[in-house]
């Protein structure tokens, strides 16, 4: 048998409306809640995980190749280094992997950011945000941070995992000794795709009313610029430096969504990138299969362009996110 907990209280609970008198955070910094929500919503998407895992592809390839070379190399005289590994520049491996993962990171940006503002435009969601203590600024910062965090984590995880693996397994091949500050230099590189994609995809998303169409638009920009720079690449291959086409054409390679990020990475890591090969002492280059390294651009030129594009699209998002009339 049960008894009422206090004298006079009814055995039947009062389930009519109760007001909420609990704690409320001060009405600032709502972007935290918005960012957290953006991340939570996107982490549920299967597309996000699919592309995120695929972006680690090249690191897997590297690990497998190195494993096989390491295990099955024969005929190495005792005391001498494995010639394959002798010519590996480690930071270039990260650079190549970074380049290969560009398309997958772009796909992640589409999944996570394409509908970020576009779907809200259709659902008139800004009305809900503005009627709470959240401003347009909170909204944009929160969305940006959410997209940025997701893309950066996707970039960072495989890169850092490979670094750890390398630090443990390839010590004898100069993984740490070749470039002791590599880890420090990798950190800004990790931030490049997140920063870029978050800014650009939010700008593109704000122009549309449907996530799919915004995504298609961004994909359109991506592929058009990709076609352009692939053409530039072929021009470069057909005309080795010094012969015929001016050096200028080399730099046009960086004018795509992939290219600008790869360019920033090259500039930060101070390398032209190679595929399994390195600079031959005494000048000249030895080519791997079809790989023709394009010179790293100057940071002084590419950084302003990179930040300029980000700023442009952020400005588009700012003006396009209609300051909706909350009462109309």
């Amino acid at each position, binding site marked *: 048998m049960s008894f009422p907990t206090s004298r006079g209280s009814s055995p039947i609970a009062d389930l009519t*409306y*109760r007001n909420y008198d609990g704690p409320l955070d001060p009405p*600032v910094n709502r972007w935290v*809640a918005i960012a957290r929500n953006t991340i939570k919503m996107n982490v549920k998407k299967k597309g996000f995980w699919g592309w995120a895992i695929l972006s680690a592809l090249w690191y897997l390839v590297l690990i497998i190749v190195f494993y096989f070379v390491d295990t099955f190399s024969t005929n190495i005289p005792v005391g001498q280094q494995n010639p394959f590994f002798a010519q590996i520049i480690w930071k270039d491996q990260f650079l190549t992997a970074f380049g290969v993962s560009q398309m997958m990171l772009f796909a992640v940006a589409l999944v996570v950011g394409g509908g970020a503002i576009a*779907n*809200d435009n259709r*659902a*008139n969601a800004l009305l*809900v945000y503005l009627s*709470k203590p959240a401003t347009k600024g909170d909204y944009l910062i929160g969305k940006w941070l959410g997209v940025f965090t997701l893309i950066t984590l996707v970039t960072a995880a495989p890169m850092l995992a490979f670094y750890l693996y390398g630090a443990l397994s390839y010590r004898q091949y100069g993984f740490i000794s070749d470039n002791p500050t590599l880890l420090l230099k990798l950190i800004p590189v990790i931030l490049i795709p997140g920063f870029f994609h978050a800014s650009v995809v939010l700008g593109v998303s704000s122009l549309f009313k449907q996530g799919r169409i915004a995504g298609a638009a961004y994909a359109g920009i991506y592929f058009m610029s990709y076609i352009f720079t692939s053409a530039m690449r072929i021009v470069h291959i057909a005309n080795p430096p010094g012969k015929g086409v001016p050096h200028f054409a080399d730099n046009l390679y960086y004018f795509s969504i992939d290219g600008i990020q790869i360019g920033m990475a090259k500039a930060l890591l101070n390398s032209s990138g190679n595929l399994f090969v390195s600079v031959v002492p005494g000048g000249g280059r030895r080519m791997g299969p079809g790989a023709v390294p394009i010179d790293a651009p100057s940071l002084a030129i590419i950084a302003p362009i990179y930040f300029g594009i980000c700023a442009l699209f952020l400005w588009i998002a700012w003006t396009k996110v209609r300051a909706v009339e909350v009462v109309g």
Partner: protein
Amino acid sequence: MSVATIQNLTVKYGNFTALNDFSCEVPEGCTGLLGPNGAGKTTLLKTLLGFVKPVGGGGSVLGFDIARDGRAIRQRIGLMPEQDCHIPGMTAVQFVAYAGELAGMPSDQAVRRAHEVLEYSGLGEARYRNVETYSTGMKQRIKFAQALVHGPKLLLLDEPTNGLDPAGREEMLELVRAVSHGKGVNVLVSSHVLPDIERVCDQVIVVMNGRLRASGKITDLKRLEGHPVDVELREPVPAFAEAVQKAGGEVISVKSTSYRIRFPGTPEEVVPKVLLLARGVEAQVRGFAVAERSLEDAFLDVIAPHEAIPQVSIV
């Protein structure tokens, strides 16, 4: 104690003066906000939400200054907007909980409270479905729920029965009435549907041409001088009106079977008089009540006391 006070507020959009030296007090309880379109009603709501920088005057809502503390105000107010709005890709529970988080609730409290409020709003199992699949009635309830989730002390409802069929309208009005009476939540309802306001609110504020036109209890506004009565006959009987006049009463208006008349005396005294007159002209009285203006009539009188009703022109 008033919930919001506005003093000598002037708001301009460019050259257009939306509110002109406007002062009013929003009392506790449930208040209706009335006014023709373009009268300044919308601007007043925006002001109460803390969105407006006045050119002159000021005010406070729940103790917060309207020009400076906009965000604090919006944390303590709940707004149910007129237009459709929701956050895409979420179920009702997620949406309402998110709304709570945006208002500043810790996330565990937000989820718990979201369920409570959705239950109260009448959304049972449907709360686990995506908001985009909802009918109009359900969408209105969600808007209502997200306005209530953070326990505001003042609820602003903008056309809460928009698009609802009669059954939905009644349920929504029940919700509003229940939350505003006895639960410590003050409500301000802005609507053009005056019977809704009559049903739910106790007092009204009428805005016109950027100024306060009238405010007060609904019962006061509806009262007619001199206690006329409405007599309802089974069929229209012209002889009845004549009989009333012959007996010393005044016939104020006749509309089909409804006769509005005035006799000296209390209603109890007038009833037998009227019944006798009706019997004399062989009419059957089907209704007798002290006449009240409908809120709509009271409102229209307040808006245009000296304008003649426009004549219908022939096409």
